[in-house]
């Protein structure tokens, strides 16, 4: 009986620690990188570390710069807002990115994220710019 209780407690504890996306409270939460309050539902981003702690960002460029300064093995989840579905957090590593001089983002990188590559290319055809994948955009922001 005791053994089972212990096991149940461990499972519960582990579940509590598993990294999960945390909803961003717009207008309340502060960017972990630049201290601005997060208001833009099309450009916010979030990092969740392996202990389940969430770091929230007002712009994708802030998240990438923050991630570039820290050890990548600490982070379990990279999340970004889908430009076409405001407020929706999607997996950053599988998203497509667009840098377009006609779409301003909060920290001046003109960077937006899209769930699907076709969507990014549609907006690119409309507004101009350059399309990247996750690795590409991280490399670009490092420069």
């Amino acid at each position: 009986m005791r053994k089972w209780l212990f096991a149940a407690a461990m499972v519960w504890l582990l579940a509590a620690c598993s990294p999960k996306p945390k909803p961003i409270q717009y207008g309340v939460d502060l960017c972990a990188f630049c201290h601005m309050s997060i208001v833009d539902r099309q450009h916010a981003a979030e990092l969740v570390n392996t202990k389940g702690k969430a770091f929230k960002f007002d712009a994708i460029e802030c998240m990438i710069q923050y991630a570039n300064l820290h050890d990548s093995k600490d982070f379990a989840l990279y999340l970004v807002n889908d430009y076409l579905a405001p407020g929706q957090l999607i997996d950053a590593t599988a998203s497509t990115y667009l840098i377009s001089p006609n779409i301003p983002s909060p920290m001046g990188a003109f960077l937006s994220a899209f769930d699907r590559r076709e969507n990014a290319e549609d907006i690119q055809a409309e507004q101009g710019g350059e399309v990247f994948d996750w690795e590409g955009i991280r490399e670009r922001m490092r420069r």
Partner: protein
Amino acid sequence: MYQKLMWGIALGLAWWGRVQAATLEVCAQCPWQSVRQAVEAAAPGDVVRVRPGGYKEHSIQINKKLVLQGTGFPVLEGNDLEEILIITADSVRVEGFELRRAGKSQLKDQAAIRVRKARYFVIQQNRIVDAYFGIYLEHSSHGLVEGNVLLGTATHEASAGNAIHGWYGRHLEISSNYIKGHRDGVYLEFVDSSLVVNNISEYNVRYGLHYMFSNDDQYVCNVFRSNGAGVAVMFSKRIQMRENRFERNWGTTAYGLLLKEIYDADIQDNHFLYNTVGIFLEGATRISYQRNEFQYNGWAVQMTGGCLDNHFTRNNFLANTLDLVVNSRVNNNTFNGNYWSEYTGYDLNRDGTGDVPHRPVKLFSYILAQSPESIVLLRSFFIDLLNFSEKVSPALTPQDVADYSPSMSKIS
């Protein structure tokens, strides 16, 4: 004789000018019933005068030099989907309108009045109610936005745009506006050599005024009250900040003034009252602070990461919970001749300057920087004891952060 001739010519020119510029009247019984039709029919240089009344109109394109004048606040009512006035020509003047129900969208930044690639515009004495963006100035310069009232309905939700939004521009003057309930009251990105003066900006979700990547600007004599945070100046150079009031920016994320990555700024004669943090600076370099008053703030000044050459001269630090937090090892910031209400030194030679230096960083603020939760111990006997012993023989607090000539009396 010569003078008379000149007068004659001047009068003649004035009369000729009157004949040239026609006035198109718009009202229910007037030749024109629709503002848009009158604007389309007008010739460059004409005046379109709109009489009191309600006009359900949107997407009015002003693509020629024109005066659009409302008398007795006619209401232009949009359809919740489109923008109302779009100015794309130089030398346009819009005054005396109330604008309602401009388009709102999560995907497109829509404004009640948009100025696109235009110069020499004047937007004056309008009321803009519940717009997403109020006045959006894109790639526009040499313009005046004066005496407008912009009322948004944003409370905690972020579903609002900025009241006055400048994106790429030069020589803008934004003066004497009243702004309430938007995301940022005034937002300027890539806007140079501009002036923000005499505005009141309050109850905005994020900032009363916000500079990004803008240089050589100044803001003077404004009031920023009860915003998410007062003013943010980021990634900008040579900004002058004078005679503003930063009041009641309370909350865990609230600052009176947030400076990040800025260079060569002057901060003079401002009042910081009842803010969680008066000034928060990170990466702020070559900044001079003179004759500012910090009163009843949680922290008067918080410095983190890489702040060099910040010089505080003749400021008043009055009854703040903590005057200063410095969270960096390298320190060449100076404090001279300030008045600190916390100062407990003496002045034996009566020259008005304290004989012992004042060290504004307390041990407790050092502890707080390490673990913010310890704020619950504030005002406890234990902390008073710690602060006192640190003051007697400093061990942890930075030695070089000190005012060697503290003023004995409040600077007026």
